[in-house]
């Protein structure tokens, strides 16, 4: 297995066209990583999965989760490992939610980074791991 590839969407603003662009770019990048034998982690803000941020950020977050679940199913045979980790916050608040720092996995001070590191080493696939408890008492994503 190669080095983990982390995809983290940037806040979208208010242009609906960005939804298509970001999801398509994610698909292309993630597929390339999987075909290259790398484990993939999509890193999302839990608030976006719950719809507590902007509607476009929520659409992208939920869309990425749907895509990951399908890739988890399709990847059973070739042994792809792709998961989602949802951490505290919403994209609109997160100036630090830039694109996929690959060294995030090494930051074991950060609970999200710790989970990413664990996912890179595990056999899990197609799963959503949530950090911070924002999901408790809410709808399952």
């Amino acid at each position: 297995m190669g080095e983990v590839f982390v995809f983290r969407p940037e806040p979208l603003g208010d242009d609906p066209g960005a939804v298509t662009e970001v999801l398509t770019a994610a698909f292309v990048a993630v597929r390339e990583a999987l075909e290259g034998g790398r484990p993939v982690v999509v890193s999302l803000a839990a608030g976006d999965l719950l719809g507590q941020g902007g509607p476009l950020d929520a659409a992208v977050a939920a869309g990425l989760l749907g895509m990951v679940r399908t890739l988890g199913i399709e990847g059973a045979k070739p042994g792809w490992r792709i998961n989602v980790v949802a951490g505290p916050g919403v994209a609109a608040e997160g100036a630090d939610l830039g694109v996929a720092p690959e060294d995030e996995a090494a930051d074991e001070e950060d609970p999200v980074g710790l989970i990413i590191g664990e996912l890179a080493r595990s056999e899990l696939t197609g799963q959503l791991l949530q950090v911070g408890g924002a999901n408790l008492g809410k709808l399952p994503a």
Partner: protein
Amino acid sequence: MQAAALCGRGAGVSAAIVTGAAGGLGGRIGERLAAAGHELVLVDLDPRVEEVAAAQGARGVVADLTRAEGVAAAVEAAGGEVGVLVNNAGITRDARATKMTEAEFAAVIEINLTAAIRLTLALEERFARGASVVNLSSRASLGNFGQANYSASKAGLVGFGRALAQRWAPRVRVNAVAPSLVDTPMTQAMPPEVLAKLVAKIPAGRIGTPDDVAGVVAFLASDDAAYVTGQVIYVCGGRTVAP
């Protein structure tokens, strides 16, 4: 009574817009909403929507909702206040992820998700108090082989709806309906043995009908659902809980 008044429309007549209305499901949804007293606006890229609309005494709009002028035409056709919007338009371009082209992925996202977002946001000021938006999602939003694009688009609709439900409450309710296999021309075109295998996984023991779905859409559009927002109802014969 007071709670219902917070989100219900009461007795007024308002426009109901249904996209993807030339198809069997969209047409049936239109019929159910017309029966509930709405003035129907049926929208589709397919010109046959005009025949469907004429048969229902509705306004038919041929429009490409991926383009600004198409969205504007749909908004214009609604006239005044909009009481119901059903985002039903959608396509499939199925392929394993390894074979799926970037264009196939983008097209499904653009039509199923981004076009719905554009139309919904364009109607923000037109929605009546107590209006209802119903997004047609899918059980495939939970993951489905060969449908990375479709899964993403239908899951995205759920996320979008959850956010809008919070942002627009209590003026507008936003929910989703997530069908599984429905008896449409698309499923009728499947090889019978493939279809039989899929139906065998459904605890209800049969394929869904457009009426199964339209009935739930009509419920969410009605004041009976005045206290329901931000939710997803799976209309799948129990498929989501079966092995």
